């Protein structure tokens, strides 16, 4: 199985590489469109600020490639947010895969949300064998509100979409690679899709 992690200059890529190795697979880093298109699974990471990450995607031309991919694609954290219509962070457009706008938590709660929170209303093969209300590791100031494409819900200030799916595109706000054995199992489920 060929797993490609999209390398566009954003994200804690090494942790994802290690998590995939612990699952018994190897991943390659790439920003080469042909290599990405030929992969069996594509992981789209992202940590940092949305508008600057989007600029890097635009500069590499990957913004037009990603929405055309047909194999399973998993966006993690900011990767998931960039797959949405747009983000309030830096008022940037996203890739428009998920039909929802990313907005910021208010100052009624501490921002960023940092730490372990529960996921529930799980609705996808991504969560096969995962119990409701397991804890995942999250670090984020912006979130995708609940919508038709939500496949997991988390509560912080409001109930919001902590995972999204549309066709072959999956996104998790949480970091499966940093969420203990349960997170690793979710990553394993993605690789089995």
């Amino acid at each position, binding site marked *: 199985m060929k797993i490609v992690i999209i390398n566009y200059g954003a994200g804690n890529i090494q942790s994802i590489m290690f998590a995939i190795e*612990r699952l018994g697979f190897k991943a390659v880093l790439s920003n080469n469109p042909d290599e990405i298109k030929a992969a069996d699974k594509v992981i789209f990471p992202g940590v940092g600020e949305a508008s600057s990450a989007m600029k890097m995607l635009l500069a590499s031309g990957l913004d037009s490639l990603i929405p055309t991919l047909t194999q399973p694609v998993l966006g993690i954290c900011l990767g998931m947010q960039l797959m949405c219509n747009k983000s309030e962070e830096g008022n940037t457009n996203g890739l428009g895969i998920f039909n929802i706008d990313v907005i910021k938590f208010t100052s009624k709660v501490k921002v960023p949300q940092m730490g372990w929170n529960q996921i529930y209303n799980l609705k996808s093969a991504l969560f096969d064998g995962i119990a409701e209300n397991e804890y995942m590791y999250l670090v984020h100031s912006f979130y995708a509100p609940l919508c038709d494409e939500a496949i997991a819900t988390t509560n912080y200030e409001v109930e919001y979409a902590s995972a999204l799916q549309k066709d072959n595109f999956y996104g998790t706000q949480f970091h499966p690679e940093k969420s203990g054995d349960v997170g690793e199992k979710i990553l394993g489920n993605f690789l089995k899709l």
Partner: protein
Amino acid sequence: MLTKRIIPCLDIKNGRTVKGVNFVDLRDAGDPVELAKIYSDEGADELVFLDISATEERRKTLVDLVRKVASTINIPFTVGGGISSVEDVEILLQNGADKVSINSSAVKNPQLINDLAQKFGSQCVVVAIDAKQIDGRWIVHLVGGKVPTELNLFDWAKEVEQRGAGEILFTSMDNDGTKNGFANEALAKLSSLVNIPIIASGGAGNIQHFVDTFIDGKADAALAASVFHFKEIEIKTLKKELKNNNIEVRI
């Protein structure tokens, strides 16, 4: 609900843990990777590695350690100690660290906080603040509490938040090593003044101290070293007790 976090802290010198550890099941008591794995398996929510080596080799040794830890454990970890530039941070994050903590370098060059937040995002920037009371005022100290600065704890905390810190690790030098509990009054005040998570550090001696710092100190996370290293408190037992006190934890 978002849980409160329990964070064991490992002091590292030349790639080895320095504070004595009392783990009979450890093959190599000085191996931070093995210790990290044990804490992760016992339910620690995060780990902090504080590098106190002062050799020229330190950077390479630390980067090697970060890689080994990241390849072994599947929970987040923070690396601190001697970090003073964007380049220092970049190499640690590239090798799998989730966050870095900066302390005296932030006091000496506050712009570093802005630079790091802008380049890597606030989520990976922890500002560690050591403070103790002098004539009733909380004063920020450097060099493990030896050197007082002009800074007031609460003003400095607000400033680091404005500059883009994602989290504050507050160690009360008055409480550190006493095992008499955390500085909950100052912690609660910090939580009311800033809107980023606060990690309580310094003073953990028993389980009730953790209950108190989450309830009275309104801390988002609690960090401790020796009570965990010497198995005076087991993380599993601690979390069960916290839950019994209606404190949300990951079990």
